[in-house]
């Protein structure tokens, strides 16, 4: 369980409180500048809050490698500076463990359907394959938590669904998955819980059906919109 109380980062987060549970997909939604990435990075221990604490399983967030073994963070910009092989990229996830981790690396590549491409240079991958390889890097570290900043942003619908399926599988095995998502329909249909941020504050928190109501969307995004379809297969239309 990751719990935060009174989390404030000057100008970006304002007294955020939340308790995130493992084994579930939690989506953080909000307009640009709402503080989503700041919240995710604070949860990952990359930003020191001005006030408030991040508690992991009842204790303050540890530092260094101990934290890195527990929390896997996937940044928004999927930078890979050197043309590593896919397996080499995934193996970077083992750095906090200080081992080569051939078995977890192979398992991570298999989990994202990239085992056949293990020897390929990253530069030759398509956008979807690259996103999966970056996720494999996080999975190879076998973290208890996967914190991903807009992992679906650059992907087409098929690859978005494929990556979500991989994240769902990780959650099914007990990992806590926290995603920053811009696409409200993906959050509505695939998250177990949604946190809506606006100007650094949590303005809605609950199941997608309860957090992403037409009223919240109108208040936060300033757009009149409504949901069509059934739960789990919703589509958002303006007006």
């Amino acid at each position, binding site marked *: 369980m990751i719990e935060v109380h009174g989390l404030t980062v000057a100008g970006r987060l304002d007294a955020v409180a939340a308790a995130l549970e493992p084994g579930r997909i939690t989506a953080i939604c909000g307009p640009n500048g709402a503080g989503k990435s700041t919240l995710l990075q604070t949860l990952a221990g990359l930003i020191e809050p001005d006030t408030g604490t991040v508690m992991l399983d009842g204790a303050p967030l540890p530092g260094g490698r101990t934290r*890195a073994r527990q*929390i896997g963070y996937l940044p928004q910009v999927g930078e890979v*500076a*050197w043309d590593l092989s896919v397996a080499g990229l995934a193996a*970077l996830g083992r750095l906090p463990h200080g081992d080569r981790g051939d078995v977890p690396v192979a398992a991570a590549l298999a989990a994202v359907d990239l085992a056949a491409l293990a020897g390929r240079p990253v530069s030759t991958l398509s956008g979807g394959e690259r996103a999966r390889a970056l996720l494999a890097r996080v999975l190879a570290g076998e973290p208890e938590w996967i914190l991903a900043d807009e992992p679906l942003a650059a992907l087409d619908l098929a690859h978005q669904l494929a990556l979500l399926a991989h994240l769902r599988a990780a959650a099914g095995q007990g990992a806590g998955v926290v995603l920053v998502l811009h696409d409200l329909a993906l959050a509505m249909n695939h998250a177990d819980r949604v946190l809506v941020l606006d100007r650094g504050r949590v303005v809605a928190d609950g199941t997608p059906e309860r957090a992403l109501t037409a009223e919240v969307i109108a208040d936060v995004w300033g757009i009149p919109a409504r949901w069509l379809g059934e739960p789990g297969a919703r589509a958002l239309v303006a007006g």
Partner: protein
Amino acid sequence: MTRPIPLLTLLLVVALPFSLLAGRVWLDPWATPNAAVILAELRLPRALLAVAIGGGLGAAGAAMQGYLRNPLADPGLFGIAPGAALGAVASLWFGYAASAWLLPAFALAGAGGAMALLGLIAGRSAGIALFTLAGMMIASLAGALMSLAISLAPNAFAMSEIVTWLMGALTDRGWSDVLVAAPLTLAGVVALRLAGPGLDALTLGEPAARSLGVDPRRLQGLLILGVGLTVGSGVAVAGIVGFVGLIVPHLVRPLTDRRPGALIVPSALGGALLVLVADCLCRVLPLVTELRLGIALSLVGAPFFLWLLLRMRREVVL
């Protein structure tokens, strides 16, 4: 991927005896008069110095490229080499270089000063951009002060001595230089190797590296220490030897899995090999005076690097 460390070690082991025999006068250990003395007092220290300097520059170049995530980075960027050169120039300017130990001591003090200044300016935030800019400013300042020293040289002899020294060479070096360069370079390479996992993590960018448990201050400290010791001691005994730190990681990278951390030791071996062979060629070329090593490496290195860039332009992100 091949196994670069055994391969490069083997090449070095082959090249070392060759370099002992090569020179304006080719040594025949059984026939040349005073062969043992020439080997022990001239050729062997010179060869070991080439290995130490090349090894240090290669490792520093690999670490710098890994840290800055840029294949065009060079050990000179941090301002440590110019800092060391400034120290050496000061000793020549004041005429202290007559003593064998004073010039290296001044150069090491210059390198240490540049390292301390870097740590002081950039150490607060541990950000890479500030760090690089600080290094470039130190390099510019040291360059300007060296130009000032040359333009205000007390006499023509000092000016010529400074300019010649800056060209970089291994001529007339002895065991005292080896004793300065070898242990410091070795310690520097060890520091850079310790930075290896951090450099590997930086492949994914700074935030991801921190999320993998990398402490940016420790990484930066290891880099300042490693580059300072390798490059500083190299400049202290041989002057400015360019291009090794830039070229060698490019040559060696295809032999590795391309992780920056895995490149440091092979680059050290590759750099040692390159400088050893280049110094041999400088000695055997039939010129009136011996070609300066620094000039030779730049003459060959610049066109070669250009060719390499054009060949690899698909994978090099400029």
